């Protein structure tokens, strides 16, 4: 019951916004080429869902993000751990990583399209390095912030390098890694939309940008809502719980 009332309280303002939108469009008779009415957006939505274009665009976008992110995580986490183990190495490398995580994502679009051509390769590359540098940097910070005494304690109890990795370094760095993934995915998602506007012929960003050419504002608004919803779902249902769970775990590790 409490959950229900919280859900109502959360959706009520959004519904009010929709009603307000309807009223304003109706009252001022807004030109649909400037801003569409609710009905037009609903119409565009059902049309896109029925003829399968929406599914194709969403699938293309998500597939790119998935491939880029998974590749990046597979390389970034081991590298971050390796570099973070030695304090000297990690302090030496962190300016370089910071430099590249500043550039991460969108700034690579021009060179990526030149190296890989317009299409799948360039976009996956952009997502890869949006996630890669941020996650590597955060993993390195996470490993470097584990108190030396913990590592000494594990070593003096006879932990093998493998157990040191799986029982001290990785759990200790996990909260940082997850924060890194969350930030990196945030950059990657924006980078994806931008890259799709520039460099492809399918995907959510492309859907918006093509609609602009034909002044189809209802498709644009619908696309924006879809983009917002997908990100909200990824962030609230996947990343935020993951972050909370690792912080609990971290608390356990500290208390033990």
């Amino acid at each position: 019951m409490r959950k229900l009332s919280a859900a109502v309280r959360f959706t009520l303002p959004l519904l009010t916004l929709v009603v307000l939108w309807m009223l304003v469009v109706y009252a001022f008779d807004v030109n649909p080429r400037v801003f569409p009415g609710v009905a037009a957006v609903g119409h565009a939505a059902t049309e896109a869902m029925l003829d399968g274009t929406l599914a194709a665009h969403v699938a293309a976008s998500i597939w790119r993000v998935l491939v880029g992110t998974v590749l990046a995580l597979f390389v970034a986490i081991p590298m971050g751990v390796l570099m973070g183990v030695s304090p000297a190495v990690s302090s030496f490398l962190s300016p370089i990583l910071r430099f590249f995580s500043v550039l991460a994502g969108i700034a690579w679009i021009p060179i990526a399209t030149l190296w890989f051509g317009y299409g799948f390769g360039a976009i996956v590359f952009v997502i890869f390095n949006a996630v890669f540098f941020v996650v590597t940097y955060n993993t390195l910070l996470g490993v470097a912030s584990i108190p030396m005494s913990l590592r000494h304690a594990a070593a003096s109890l006879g932990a093998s390098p493998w157990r040191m990795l799986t029982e001290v370094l990785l759990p200790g760095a996990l909260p940082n890694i997850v924060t890194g993934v969350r930030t990196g995915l945030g950059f990657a998602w924006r980078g994806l939309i931008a890259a799709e506007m520039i460099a492809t012929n399918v995907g959510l960003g492309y859907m918006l940008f093509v609609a602009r050419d034909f002044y189809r504002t209802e498709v644009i608004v619908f696309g924006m809502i879809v983009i917002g919803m997908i990100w909200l779902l990824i962030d609230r249902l996947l990343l935020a719980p993951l972050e909370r769970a690792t912080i609990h775990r971290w608390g356990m590790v500290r208390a033990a």
Partner: protein
Amino acid sequence: MNGLAYLWVRWIWSPYMRATARWPSTRSVVPFLPLIAVWWGVAQAELFPRTFFPGPAEVVSSFFTLVYKGILPEYLADSVTRLAVGAAAGIAIGIPLGLLVGLNRRAHDALWPVLLFFQAIGDIAWLPILLIWFGFGLTTMTLIIVYTVLFPIVLNTVLGVRAIPLDMHRAAKSLGASPLAIIREVVLPGALPNIVTGLRNGLGYGWRALIAAEIIVGTSGIGFLMFDARRAGSVVEIMLGMIVLGVLWFIVDAWVLAPIERATGQRWGMVQRQ
């Protein structure tokens, strides 16, 4: 092997450690030297075609050419001005809005979900419709940046305001502070560290949004420089653009954000001690 390690420590590592201990600012420069050396080596070995992967020397010479022609300073000034205007507007709207939403229960109930939703839509998704409304131009770009900077600041301000213990409000009130005095003396200082975090995130996102907007809208700016170079197939100028962007962020970070963060950290410390 041991001898090699000795040489490494004696002639490279310990001088580096001593130098960074004496001049801490070298710490953020020296690590790039081996990177540049590797870059130079790879380019020199021509593993990739030279036009696809130019070396540092070409990039430096294109830097001087573009500075001499006056293109780079002009574009750089354009980008920085846009970012500064966007950030200023974002702060001017964001902090009061954040205070309102953080302090007033009704405002929080009504606005919080809306804020979360619009934050999720993300800056760049607004580009197409802004292009329809305002055309290819400065207004579009400025609005994108304001939008991007705004949300992290508002959301973090709200979090900061709501993290202040209620007892602080009550204590100030029972000492006879007016609502305005409470905002000035309790709420703002208490939320300041969060506001600064929001500002940092916002600028980080705003920065990327600016590059994307300049690439797509394309009239001037570093993003435009890079995309124009891409059209001409000039990797040298793209790399130059990327390096300029990275260095610029280092400067903003070291000269603007870090001092603010230090100042608010100290202020926060003071507030806690009282």
